[in-house]
């Protein structure tokens, strides 16, 4: 194939030439009015590996989902092997030779390796047996692919019996089966043991030398340096640095990822944390999830919990609220021990929890604003010997609260909540819990997917709540938000608390280092470590 003459669009470092496999030019994408990608332009040559780094929410996943056909860009163009490329779905992407290996693997555990590889393209008997699956050919072709990825397993093995590392290799074999020219790896090492990582890297080098290009997304910067030819750093949906790997060191990457402060406003918190402890966790552990978590939350305090996705922050919150089991450790709320399981008794004792998954766990989407707001505190508004609901009193309380959380006056109390914007929905979730006057409020990603105005309103309510004497735990992917709001930040990685930062001494670099962890320290559970050759 002759390299087509192309007018290469705006390039940062005019290094790539007509040899480009893939050119992304001026891509834009926004969700619900929030821009996630802004004028992203990148180029990738044949056989090259592009390392893509950036903080949570910088736009890496969105960019790759556009490339893999899961989303469509709002504007901008892509060119693959000299031809325009605009996938409408994942099948389009794979037909053009792009394979996307997600962090959460897309394999069917109840099928064999071979069946997973050829699910929509089974080899069949031609002339006899009614076009049924040609098992022998399936085995042979699977065997060949497994050999290429260095996996010594029988093609008939069920995928549910494989370790995470082995499943990853099966995904790569799947990419090879469609003759992928470009493979996207999204955080490929998160669930792998050290040995499995080594195996993966060896395989990646082999693929590189056979001319297959790759995009490698990872928070483990050392791996990115080791594995890629070029590196691009994303921040707030923009490419803030791009070039050959030789130009980058970990320090430079981190400072590019961090960047300057965003011009975001946080309400001022007047009251300092007192010495009273409202919530105390002692040595909480759940095997495979979190280990040895101890902390104290004080009255009037906003405590931040940060860390990368999958660091255990959300799991910790769910354990605190009794939604997930916890094997060891104790929890005390206002000096009284909390039971092992179940949110019901915790809510009674004054705990509140805003879930990161607003749509599925925070609200009853088709119920009215009124019903959603009243849900938790309903029992407080009953009277008389029969325990009848005091409608009028409830309505006036709800109306006051709606005003207090800044719910826009236009919204009817009887309207369904799924008609509202994300910001107003979140205000209803907050109102629901505030009506119960919580002593401790745990908020998991309270500002995700809501507009700036609503964000400020959420911040204001948190500060007011702390001022009124409650303890607040804020879990967030945004470092800005944590540093703007919290008195103290715990940094989690690998299910443990790795660092603690206190108010005047907030340091983004130190935060990021703690969250990223040294890859050598990676602790892995022995149960996962099985099966890979050498």
């Amino acid at each position: 194939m002759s390299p087509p003459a192309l007018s290469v669009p705006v390039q940062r470092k005019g290094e790539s030439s007509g040899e480009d496999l893939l050119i992304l030019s001026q891509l834009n994408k926004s969700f619900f009015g929030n821009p996630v990608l802004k004028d992203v332009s990148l180029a990738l040559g044949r056989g090259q590996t592009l390392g893509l780094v950036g903080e949570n929410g910088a736009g890496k996943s969105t960019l790759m989902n556009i490339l893999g056909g899961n989303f469509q860009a709002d504007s901008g163009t892509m060119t693959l092997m000299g031809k325009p490329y605009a996938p409408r779905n994942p099948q389009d992407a794979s037909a053009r030779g792009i394979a996307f290996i997600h962090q959460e693997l897309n394999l069917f555990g109840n099928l064999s390796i071979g069946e997973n590889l050829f699910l929509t393209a089974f080899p069949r008997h031609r002339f006899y047996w009614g076009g049924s699956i040609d098992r022998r050919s399936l085995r042979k072709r699977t065997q060949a692919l497994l050999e290429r990825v260095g996996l010594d397993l029988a093609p008939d093995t069920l995928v549910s019996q494989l370790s995470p590392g082995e499943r990853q290799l099966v995904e790569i074999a799947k990419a090879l089966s469609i003759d992928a020219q470009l493979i996207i790896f999204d955080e490929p090492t998160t669930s792998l043991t050290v040995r499995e990582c080594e195996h993966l890297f060896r395989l990646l080098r082999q693929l590189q030398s056979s001319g297959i290009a790759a995009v490698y997304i990872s928070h483990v910067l050392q791996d990115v340096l080791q594995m890629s030819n070029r590196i691009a750093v994303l921040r707030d949906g923009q490419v803030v640095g791009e070039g050959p790997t030789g130009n980058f060191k970990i320090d430079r990457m981190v400072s590019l990822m961090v960047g300057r402060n965003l011009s975001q406003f946080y309400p001022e918190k007047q009251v300092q944390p007192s010495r009273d402890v409202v919530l105390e966790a002692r040595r909480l552990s759940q095997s495979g999830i979190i280990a040895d978590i101890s902390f104290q939350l004080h009255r009037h305090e906003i405590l931040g919990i940060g860390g990368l996705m999958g660091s255990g922050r959300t799991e910790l919150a769910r354990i605190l609220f009794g939604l997930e089991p916890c094997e060891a450790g104790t929890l005390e709320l206002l000096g009284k021990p909390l039971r092992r399981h179940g949110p019901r008794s915790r809510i009674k004792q004054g705990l509140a929890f805003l879930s990161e998954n607003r749509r599925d766990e925070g609200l009853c989407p088709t119920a009215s604003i009124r019903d959603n707001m009243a849900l938790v505190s309903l029992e407080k508004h009953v009277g008389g010997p029969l325990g009848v609901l005091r409608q009028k009193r409830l309505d006036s309380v709800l109306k006051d609260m709606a005003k207090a959380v800044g719910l826009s006056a236009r919204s009817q109390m009887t309207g369904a909540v799924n008609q509202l914007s994300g910001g107003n929905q979140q205000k209803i979730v907050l109102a629901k819990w505030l009506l119960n006057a919580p002593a401790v409020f745990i908020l998991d990603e309270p500002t995700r997917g809501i507009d700036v105005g609503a964000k400020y309103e959420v911040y204001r309510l948190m500060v007011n709540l702390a001022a009124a004497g409650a303890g607040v735990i804020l879990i967030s992917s945004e470092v800005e938000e944590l540093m703007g709001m919290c008195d103290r930040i715990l940094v989690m990685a690998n299910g443990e608390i790795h660092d603690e930062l206190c108010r005047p001494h907030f340091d983004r670099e130190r935060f990021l280092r703690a969250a990223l962890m040294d890859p050598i320290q990676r602790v892995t559970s022995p149960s996962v470590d099985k099966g890979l050759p050498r």
Partner: protein
Amino acid sequence: MNGRRLLLMLLNQVSWLLFASVLIVFGILSPRFLDGANLVNILIQSSSLAIVATGMTFVLLTAGVDLSVGAIMFVAAAFAGKLMLAGFSLSTALIGMMSVGLVFGAVNGFLVTRLRIVAFIVTLAMLYLGRGLGLWITQTRAMNLPESFLHLGSSRILGVPIPLLLFTGTVAVAHWILARTPFGRQLYAIGQDAEAARKAGVHTRLWLFSVYVISGLCAALGGIVSLAQLGAVSPTFGQQREFSAIAAAVLGGTSLFGGRGKVFPGTVLGAVLIQMVENGLVILNANPYLYPLITSAIIFMAVLIDCARYELMARMNRRRIR
């Protein structure tokens, strides 16, 4: 960890264990039970249920359910009875029955895949519709069929009774489809995760539709076998067959949560097991009021085992971040 694995292995083999224990218990209680002729009789008696349960297995594999199979049997039988009493031939009546199964299955499939109504509700509505339709056709009277229909149930080809032939034929074809065709394997993928299967390029909607059609056809065929053995359509024909069909599939290891199960040996084992219990109780001369109690205990046990297994597997596959 290892204890869990052992328990899971045990739960996976539970169909065989139950089968063997029922065989042994009734064998001890009554030596007549293990008589060769009686065992063959059990197989013949279980043909109808096994065929219906085979269709049910397809539906359950996709995490759906078909509650209308008993009603389909009834409507098909009533329709065939009317046709034959009006002087039509046996073959016309048989084609008529299969057509009823096809239409009912297609309506189920259409409502589930196109209008996206939950399978449970759709097929429950079809259950009532079918029952009502059947009672209307028969005027709630029992209908005796001509001799020729009964012959179907008692005659043999190469020494093998026709019900048994239909039984083995259906099971063989179904097993081949599930194990050896892309359609079959993709059904397992849909049952595991329909959205992921759709993203991988599987024709999720068309396949789901086909599954209800298959179930309808199997119900009609099961109705033919049953009718050929009884020789008459009573107002209770096929009643509660849906539950014994689900129980047979689930006892054979098919999961109500989808993605797991086999026609052979699984569903066959379950269907024969249920028939064995019924037969054994008759031989023991047990109190007839006991039958529904024992049947309900079997259904309960089947579902309990399935849930225990599902829970155990979910726990073993829980995401670990450390």
